[in-house]
């Protein structure tokens, strides 16, 4: 008897940050997932089984993530863990899941550990920070003809991944950073870091930053008359940047995989989707809502394909030859194989123009 799958129901677990520093994201991911589940259930579920989502709160704390995973896996008997947020949290929770053959399905973190080293139970969908920066930074350097590239990054695994990706990209074009400077998560003052980059004469700054730090850094730079090209990762690709930072943010670049769903989006299906979300949750959707939605969409596709006999093993067998076509959001096509558990390593570049993200490049090709 497969745990989490009954005649009528499939139980999906997810761990989000609902009370910690990323509570905003966690909530959006969950809502995105719920939206897709409701759609699926309205259409009769997956092979006749309704989907049920159980959310746990980790508060962005790895220990609580383990406790939550234990509860979900051993108490609630989930079939799959989908869209778990946070790198350290995933790393901490995965052993608990794997003991019971619970797949860690498309976590919301672009760290390489989410599919490396290869494991039967690990699947990730979107390009990692590493790949994003590796592709985008050299391209932008060429375009802008920058000779001095610097980096400011959050002193944790996330920031380091961005840094390493950019470093790898620069190496490919025989460059290195002119200056690297870091800050601790939660920092609010970036004056000394900016001063440092300014005195190094940077022309381009790679931002291993999330939201407030991105805004803080750019604002501080603009204030002191320091105007290099700024490029961030998909972690900085959120509407909050221009909402919080205002005019000063114009011109900033960020890599991205799925677009932000503006309510007045030109593309018809996205606008329709965004308004549906807004009606349901009385909240504007964010790019994280899209992640949540896409993650569950992918799960539903895979579960559908697996057929009525849904077990961990049969699900993995399906996953290992699954191709996910591009969707309404224009996300890149995903392809899984028994040796490649990352769906896609493609990303593109977006820039803030007149207080809104505009996509400015095609998907970069990476070998």
């Amino acid at each position, binding site marked *: 008897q497969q745990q989490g799958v009954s005649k009528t129901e499939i139980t999906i677990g997810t761990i989000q940050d609902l009370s910690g520093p990323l509570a905003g994201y966690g909530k959006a991911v969950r809502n995105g997932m719920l939206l897709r589940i409701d759609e699926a259930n309205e259409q009769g579920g997956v092979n006749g089984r309704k989907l049920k989502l159980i959310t746990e709160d980790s508060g962005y704390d790895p220990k609580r993530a383990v406790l939550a995973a234990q509860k979900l896996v051993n108490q609630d008997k989930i079939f799959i863990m989908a869209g778990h947020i946070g790198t350290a949290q995933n790393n901490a929770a995965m052993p608990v899941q794997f003991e019971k053959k619970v797949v860690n399905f498309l976590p919301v973190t672009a760290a390489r550990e989410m599919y490396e080293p290869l494991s039967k139970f690990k699947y990730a969908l979107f390009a990692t920070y590493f790949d994003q920066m590796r592709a985008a930074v050299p391209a932008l350097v060429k375009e802008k003809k920058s000779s001095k590239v610097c980096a400011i990054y959050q*002193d944790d695994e996330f920031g380091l991944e961005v840094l390493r990706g950019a470093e790898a990209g620069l190496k490919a074009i025989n460059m290195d950073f002119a200056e690297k400077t870091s800050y601790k998560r939660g920092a609010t003052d970036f004056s000394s870091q900016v001063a440092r980059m300014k005195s190094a004469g940077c022309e381009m700054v790679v931002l291993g930053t999330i939201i407030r730090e991105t805004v803080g850094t750019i604002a501080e730079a603009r204030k002191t008359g320091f105007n290099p090209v700024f490029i961030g990762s998909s972690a900085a690709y959120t509407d909050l940047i221009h909402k919080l930072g205002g005019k000063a943010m114009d011109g900033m670049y960020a890599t991205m995989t799925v677009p932000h769903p503006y309510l007045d989006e030109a593309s018809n299906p996205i606008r329709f989707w965004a308004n549906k979300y807004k009606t349901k949750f009385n909240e504007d959707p964010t790019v994280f809502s899209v992640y949540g939605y896409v993650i569950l969409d992918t799960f539903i596709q895979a579960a559908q394909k697996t057929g009525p006999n849904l077990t961990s093993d049969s699900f993995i067998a399906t996953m290992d030859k699954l191709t996910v076509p591009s969707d309404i959001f224009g996300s890149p096509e995903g392809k899984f194989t028994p040796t490649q558990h990352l769906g896609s390593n493609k990303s593109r570049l977006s820039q803030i123009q007149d207080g809104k993200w505009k996509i400015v490049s095609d998907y970069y090709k990476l070998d």
Partner: protein
Amino acid sequence: MQELQVIFSGVAQGCIYGLIALGFVLIYKATETVSFAQGELMMLGAFCGLACVNWLGLPFWLAIPSSMLAMAIMGWLIERAVIRPVLGQPAFSIVMLTIGIGYVARGLITMIPDIGTETHTLQVPYKDTSFDLGGVVIGATQVVVVTATALLSLVLYVVFRYSRVGIAMQASSQNQLAAYYMGIPVQKLNGLVWALAAAVAAIAGLLLAPITFVHANMGFIGLKAFPAAVVGGFGSLPGAIVGGVIIGVVEALSGFWLPEGFKDIAAYIVVLLMLVLKPNGLFGENLRKKV
């Protein structure tokens, strides 16, 4: 030149630490408890300001007194509801209470749909103004922070040093029993102190808002204010400011000069050095018991 710029930014940042530290010292001086909720009160204050400006449409200059008032009432209510019933218990119980208050405040704000989990900007009139003093750029936000901090600490210093109520607050913290014997309305004063501390927190929140934005976790900056208060000497109001500025400047300079990572722990290294050299801080009282 760059250094000067860095130092000034450090001073401004330090004043923010000092401002929060002022709240700690205030409560410590008057009740001998260390309030771990001060950062959260500041966060609530910032949200108050946000409510006033963004949702009620008040002008910023009116939002300041209104949030101070609102927060003062809030502080008083908190005291009334949870602190007063345990007044007289060992100070440590109350420290625990403040941790609980911090959790609840953060959680409640997060629970507000659509608002709590977001980051907001507080529109302040002076936000984009800055002065260029021959290469050193000074933001108006920083000038306002420095000025407000200096004024506030001066006022509080005078109140504690010379006013009857101020002295009575100190008396109650040193020997609560004797304060009762003297007819000092310890409970009322306690309420007053919390109201005052919350109002100070509101100011800190409003001044900080343009710099760090308003969000549920902005109170964590309070952790940097502890070292500030300790360096200055925990019982001393001017000490809080001086300590804050020291920490701010050391932090800024070590971020500029020293290898990666030092900026983030500079504050704590300063504290440890301070405690070794001068255990009671720069302006702390000499705390030796006479037997």
